[in-house]
């Protein structure tokens, strides 16, 4: 016989489950890119304001992750990668997750408006709306272009970071947006190439599921090539510098080379247990981290180098 506690709502939800609800990996990427956007901006933010803004951006990212888990609970239970999430495991009810996500969404937007400025809060609201409504509810189960359009949500955090500092939009944050927007499809298509059966079982029309592996591989190469001019423009612009330029050259070369290898190795993928696809997925994470870290370092060094060399 079950005790009253076990049948009570969310009784089994532990600390790690609570953390998992916020999608910590996605959140870390959001916080990192937002922080770089803030650092790269020409206006210095007070550390407390910056910390508060990052905390509320992280909260907004977590809230959208929770709402995504609420809507996708049925397909999460069918996929190996997601079936251990708290909702499919029954550790928290979908209704409670929805409430939690909605409350945290409101809180994060209002607090960001108070901590930073209304434009930053508006951009955070657009990010959450785009991720939850446009991507999760509308496109994810309907279109093979789901990740392309949905990627705009993940591309906005550096813009929010920049706007927190300056209060207005500029070319540089839009280039950062373009970089992440173009980076997202190859990143997720590489994942879906080696998680193909998972996506197929869940009925998610990823590009490789609908049009085949070869099409996805060529698309990855196309996006990898499209990234080159954007990252070079970013490196040569106000937000960039010598380190960003070096990182752009090295990482783009590696990324395009990796994409070419993916196109060539299509037939041997099953035999090699998708070794190249997994490698390319990890490379895509390194690409984003190195590019943005270089931009942050360039921005931090700029005041010291501006008197020494023209930047």
């Amino acid at each position, binding site marked *: *016989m079950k*005790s*009253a*506690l*076990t049948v009570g709502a969310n*009784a*089994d*939800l*532990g*600390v790690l489950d*609570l953390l998992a609800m916020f999608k910590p990996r996605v959140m870390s990427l959001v916080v990192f890119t937002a922080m770089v956007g803030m650092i790269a901006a020409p206006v210095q933010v*007070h550390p*407390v*304001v910056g*910390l*508060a803004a990052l*905390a509320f951006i992280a909260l907004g990212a977590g809230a959208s992750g929770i709402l995504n888990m609420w809507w996708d609970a049925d397909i999460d239970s069918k996929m190996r990668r997601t079936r251990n999430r708290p909702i499919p495991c029954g550790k928290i009810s979908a209704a409670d997750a929805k409430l939690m996500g909605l409350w945290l969404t409101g809180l994060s937007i209002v*607090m960001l408006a*108070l*901590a930073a400025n209304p434009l930053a809060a508006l951009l955070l609201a657009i990010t959450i709306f785009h991720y939850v409504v446009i991507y999760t509810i509308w496109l994810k189960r309907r279109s093979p272009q789901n990740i392309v359009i949905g990627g705009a949500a993940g591309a906005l955090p550096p813009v929010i970071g920049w706007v927190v500092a300056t209060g207005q939009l500029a070319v540089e944050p839009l280039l950062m947006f373009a970089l992440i927007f173009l980076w997202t499809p190859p990143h997720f298509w590489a994942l879906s190439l080696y998680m193909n059966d998972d996506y197929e079982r869940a009925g998610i029309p990823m590009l490789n599921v609908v049009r085949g592996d070869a099409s996805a591989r060529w698309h990855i190469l196309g996006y990898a090539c499209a990234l080159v001019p954007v990252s070079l423009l970013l490196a040569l612009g106000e937000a960039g510098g010598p380190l960003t330029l070096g990182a752009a050259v090295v990482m783009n070369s590696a990324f395009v080379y990796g994409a070419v290898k993916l196109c060539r190795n299509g037939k041997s993928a099953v035999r090699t247990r998708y070794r190249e696809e997994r490698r390319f997925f990890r490379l895509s994470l390194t690409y984003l981290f190195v590019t943005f870290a270089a931009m942050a370092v360039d921005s931090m060094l700029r005041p010291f180098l501006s008197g020494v060399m023209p930047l």
Partner: protein
Amino acid sequence: MPLSREHDLHSARSGRNLVVGACLCAFVLLVFALTLVKLSSGHQMEAFDHSVRPSLVKGDQ
């Protein structure tokens, strides 16, 4: 069935509650620090109530 003090659910709940409590404390501290920063950096402290008062009128410039 009576619940003992050592029931697994108690430890799961207490851990979760501690984390939520810590987050709430961090939130309060953050808002407090933010308030201090905003006030000390000369942000507007009075809301507009549709009546002109000296603090709303820009000085002779």
